[in-house]
């Protein structure tokens, strides 16, 4: 019960912020919410199942292009394109998982990284279709929801997507599958001995993670009107990991806290120095030293042990 109060309360708070914040921060929040969905997806694989992937940029980019290509070449309306992007992310993750999950640990990191890099180069290779590094401009966000301005439509869709993702994540981690995912993270051998099939559970977790990542990629492309190969670069595999680490791996609200904190860390540091990445680095070092479980992970450990 208190879980639901906390999470629904968070949703209500975010909704209020979206409406009351000044325009600059409201749009930032819409961006953050979409990226949080990506981080939630990453957290399912990394935080809950213990799959340290360096290839999530591929799933995000699959969403970006899964939505952008049909919109550009088939004239698909934007909302169905969102579904297409979500599906593309899930399918891509399942396919990569089928091969990459034969490995574990460091090998898994390398194999996923390799797939993502291959995906990036594929986007460049098919430049005439994908726009390559320059990318494609997508239709104005004002056409997203009839009757709403671009900003209102963006906020509405970002919030709806975030709310769906957050509740879905909460349901998943409290479900039987979610518990099994944690079992894989904690002790795969023992789970196998108890009769679970680690490969199937991890594949399911990765595919789910891909669905979230794909949805985020599709939404990011559609809401902000741009698809480009830069979304498939290694940077977009590292970022969700940092967001999750900062917020707290294996916590449902951690991705929200981590993504927002990191976004504003870069945004504010950027006003004072060009060395914004130094700030990010120092923040992470401090985190590892003093709160290795991330912000929410530490809070859970010390005070709120019931947090999912």
């Amino acid at each position, binding site marked *: 019960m208190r879980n639901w109060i906390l999470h629904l309360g968070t949703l209500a708070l975010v909704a209020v912020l979206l409406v009351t914040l000044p*325009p600059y921060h409201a749009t930032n929040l819409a961006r953050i919410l979409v990226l949080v969905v990506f981080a939630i997806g990453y957290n399912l694989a990394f935080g809950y199942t213990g799959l340290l992937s360096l290839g999530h940029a591929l799933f995000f980019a699959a969403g970006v292009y899964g939505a952008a290509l049909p919109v550009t070449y088939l004239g698909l309306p934007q909302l169905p394109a969102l579904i297409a992007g979500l599906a593309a992310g899930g399918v891509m993750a399942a396919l990569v998982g089928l091969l990459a999950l034969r490995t574990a640990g460091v090998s898994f990191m390398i194999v996923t990284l390799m797939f993502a890099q291959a995906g990036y180069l594929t986007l460049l290779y098919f430049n*005439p279709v994908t726009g390559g590094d*320059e990318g494609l401009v997508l239709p104005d966000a004002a056409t997203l929801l009839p009757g709403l301005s671009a900003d209102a439509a963006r906020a509405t869709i970002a919030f709806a997507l975030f709310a769906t993702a957050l509740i879905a994540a909460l349901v998943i981690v409290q479900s039987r599958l979610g518990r099994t995912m944690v079992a894989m993270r904690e002790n795969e051998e023992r789970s196998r001995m108890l009769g679970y099939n680690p490969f199937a559970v991890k594949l399911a977790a990765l595919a789910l993670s891909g669905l979230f990542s794909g949805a985020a990629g599709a939404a990011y492309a559609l809401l902000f009107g*741009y698809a480009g190969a830069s979304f498939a670069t290694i940077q977009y595999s590292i970022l969700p990991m940092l967001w999750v680490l900062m917020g707290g791996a294996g916590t449902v609200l951690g991705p929200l806290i981590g993504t927002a904190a990191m976004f504003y860390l870069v945004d504010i540091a950027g006003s004072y120095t060009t060395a914004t990445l130094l700030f990010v680095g120092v923040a992470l070092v401090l985190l590892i030293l003093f709160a290795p479980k991330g912000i929410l992970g530490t809070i859970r450990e010390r005070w709120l042990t019931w947090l999912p």
Partner: protein
Amino acid sequence: MTNLITPTRRTLLKGMGAGLLASAALPGHVFGQAAPIKLGFQLHRTGIGAAYGRWYERTAQAALKVVNDAGGINGRPVEIVFEDDATDPKRGAEVVEKLASQAGCDLIFGPLFSHVVIGSAPRAGELKIPYLVCSEGYHVASGMLNRWTMQPGITDVRAQVSSMAPWVTQNLGKKVTMVYPDYAFGYDHRDFFTEAVKAQGGEVIAQIAIPPTETTFTRYLPQIPTETEVLYHVMVGPAVLTFVKELGDFYGSGARPQIFGFIDSLEAVDTASPGLEFLEGTHFWEAHNRVKQADASEAETFYRAAVGVDDNGASVSDAADVATYSHMFSVWETLSVIKKGMEAAGYQGPADRQKFVEAVEAMTTFDAGQDHPQGDKVFNGKTHQVFGHQFISKVEGGKLMRVHQTAIEDGQYADAVDYSTQSF
């Protein structure tokens, strides 16, 4: 004195209060009565475009000083708010947002890299804020962007490339092999130069695309056909030094084709660097002669001094800090166009942004002079693209010396879009 060394809380508070008062009072003295016009500058201060960004910022500061010394715009002082976009399209769109919504800028200008421009322009269009890019990409004139995005400061790559073909085929040779990076920027070169060479009766006999991940080129060089008369190269990024060195090793001291390159590869790089000796006697496109030529105009001399570049094209304070001279003039000239546009539109504030765009669209020609030190230009209000002269230089004694200047018409092409008919 002891108070200063170990201040009490009271003195500290007093000092802070005085400081606050002083800082609050100061701007009034500096800027006078009228509120300044705020121009946002989307700057590649970090990331792959940092070498360009460094010089774009210096050029913008120099141009700003000239504008303010001459009384600002519409009698108001002008200030520029710089914001780093890390040469990243995602961050670029956020920076547009920040400059427009948070800093309250009247318009935004300055980005160079194509992917950043393409990633940011949609947001500028939504925010209905003029977005003046210094990018040389063909994406403005191709019709890909929107009515709020304009490029009045630099000729686009399609025109640059096309205007090279007549001279190259008549003076260097008709059988051309192209070496270019295997991504969008390289494809503009491949497509437009191949087409232009054909129109001149020449032929591109081989197109060698180098994947962006390559760090060595030895395996591509044997693909250059032996009958090649001209080797056309454009390689953006640090790999250019390796490329030139390996090309030198490949041809040794034997016969080599004529070599023609785009200076983009060597912007911010000294052509007399060790390892680049092989470039001696080869030709380059330049949009603005890095080395001060004997016939330099007064405006050119003034501009060069204002941005702090010496006669060799390096910073006056550091001879190793070579300018991105063939691109940075676009910042200076864009600011000139902003001033003219705001004056023509009687610009008072954000409500006049549309009038400003219409005023720029109405412009047709820019005269050479202090406002346009690179030379005279023709502006196409329909495609939002400017066209200027281009130069071909030869490396002599490690220095780029001009051997040809194109006519503006050499680069012009049929309109692909008419932005002026689109709604705001």
